[in-house]
């Protein structure tokens, strides 16, 4: 843990700076996050995390939580699967310790900072063709790499907007601006502006796309302090949710104007 987050002995603390109903077994304070480790006798989840989760989210405290559990605990399969699901849903990192084999530890899953956690997506409201990509984005986001998950969402939306631009060009409806069919170097922001100007599809949806593209730059740099981390994480989560809303709305907006999604 020390190596992973460049932590020193002085970074070990006893308790969170604000009232949270949980004292983790080990707690460190890095420049940008609190890193908590809970030791479990059996499976990869602990009820203490469930108790503290709401408070940490509410206070937007940048906390990354790991649960360390014994790999050979012989936990019943059902209960193990339940723990694993909870760990996934709560964005918890998992460390297994092979206590039959000289305490070899393995990080099975990285955590995501608690305020970033997003509930499992209801895939039934999305177009089937994008669901595999959405699943991949969500898994990347929740498995300790929210920026990458968001980046993949951006790429998905970009590909759909450029596809819309290409179709509008073919139909001779996109006549202003400098976009030409298949031009990947043309700025996506400018393309959305062009599409909005000529009302190619609903401007409300395109407006949200424009906002999403603008905000993306605000979350792409690394935080240096906890305050920055809180701000960036809030934006990252909001943008991921915004991307979901856009991807839910775009197919209908395309269909209304007879464009293929």
């Amino acid at each position, binding site marked *: 843990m020390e190596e992973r987050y460049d932590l020193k002995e002085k970074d070990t603390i006893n308790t969170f700076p604000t009232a949270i*109903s*949980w*004292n983790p077994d080990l707690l460190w304070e890095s420049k940008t996050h609190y890193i908590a480790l809970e030791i479990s006798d059996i499976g990869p989840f*602990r009820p*203490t995390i469930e108790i503290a989760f709401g408070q940490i989210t509410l206070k937007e405290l940048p906390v990354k939580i790991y649960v360390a559990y014994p790999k050979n605990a012989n936990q019943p399969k059902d209960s193990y699967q339940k723990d694993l699901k909870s760990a996934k849903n709560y964005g918890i990192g998992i460390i297994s310790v092979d206590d039959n084999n000289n305490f070899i530890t393995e990080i099975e899953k990285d955590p995501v900072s608690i305020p970033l956690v997003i509930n499992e997506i209801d895939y039934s409201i999305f177009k089937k063709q994008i669901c595999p990509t959405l699943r991949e984005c969500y898994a990347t986001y929740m498995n300790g790499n929210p920026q990458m998950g968001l980046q993949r969402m951006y790429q998905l939306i970009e590909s759909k907007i450029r596809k819309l631009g290409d179709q509008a060009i073919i139909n001779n409806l996109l006549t202003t601006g400098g976009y030409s069919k298949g031009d990947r170097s043309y700025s996506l922001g400018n393309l959305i502006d062009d599409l909005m100007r000529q009302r190619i599809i609903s401007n409300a949806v395109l407006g949200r796309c424009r906002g999403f593209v603008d905000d993306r730059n605000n979350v792409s740099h690394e935080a240096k302090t906890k305050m920055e981390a809180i701000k960036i994480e809030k934006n990252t989560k909001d943008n991921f949710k915004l991307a979901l809303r856009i991807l839910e709305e775009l197919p209908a907006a395309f269909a209304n104007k007879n464009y293929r999604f």
Partner: protein
Amino acid sequence: MEQKKLKHIAIECIEPNPENPRIVFRQEELDSLLVSINKIGVQVPISVYQEGDKYFIIDGQRRFLTCKKLNHKTIPAIVQDKPSELDNLLLMFNIHALREQWDIFTIAMKIPRIKKLFRKRNGFDPTESELSQETGLTRGTIRRCNMIIDLPERFKDLILEELKKPKSKQTFSEDFFLEMERSLKTIKRRYPSFETRLDDARDILIEKYKTSVIPAITDFRKLSKIATAPGNTGIDRNIAEKAIETALFNINIGIQEIYENTVANKYNERKFLLNVDNFAYYLENLTEEEIDDSEIKDALVKIKSIIDKLLIEED
């Protein structure tokens, strides 16, 4: 005596009772309490006594640990008078041992200290019965504790390590050692020549259990039966001694197999003869009325025909 007071005491001022025999608190035992205290708080205050600016827990260590885990700043507590050393220790037993299923090891480790404090107070060593009265433990439990106390230190360390694991993951339970020690005690009493080698035998028996050559801890009872077989069944003492030697020092042969090959038949025969004796006694004492009962008569005819058939076959 000062009136007992209910206070809300800061968690950081509270210390576990140094005399609490419980060393291990397993997560599975604390989890349900954790959820309950988080939901409805501490409904029953803990009991503590004060020493300087610290409070020591008499009753409520699990509630205390749970509150600490839940980052509670204070906990409701009743402050009691400070008990004497022996009373403090005995309180731990009387409050907890009777209410919860304690690990026998944790109790055993405190027995020598109780004996010492008892001797200091009364000027003589407690008998088994006095220990039982003072601690609220049964005499059987005290005997089991003594067996654990007498174990070599390395096995006590092993038990302690096992106790830290969830029940389901424990391989070498206290029961394993108790069963093994009982059988070794029987062997030692009847075959003193093994005494100096028993410690080596323990290591081999542990290995046999680890590799499932001994699949169940109850197999040790059969080892005792082999040891007592010459007296109980009349088999040759040398045969029993040789069987014990194999059971204790041959890493590849299980107790059950040795039992089957040496004394099982003799024990079955003995059991049969005992049953026959009982049955014969019952028959001899049947009343006329009972003999006239049609169900009993049918049963007797059935038995007679079986016996006749067996005896004719033998002729």
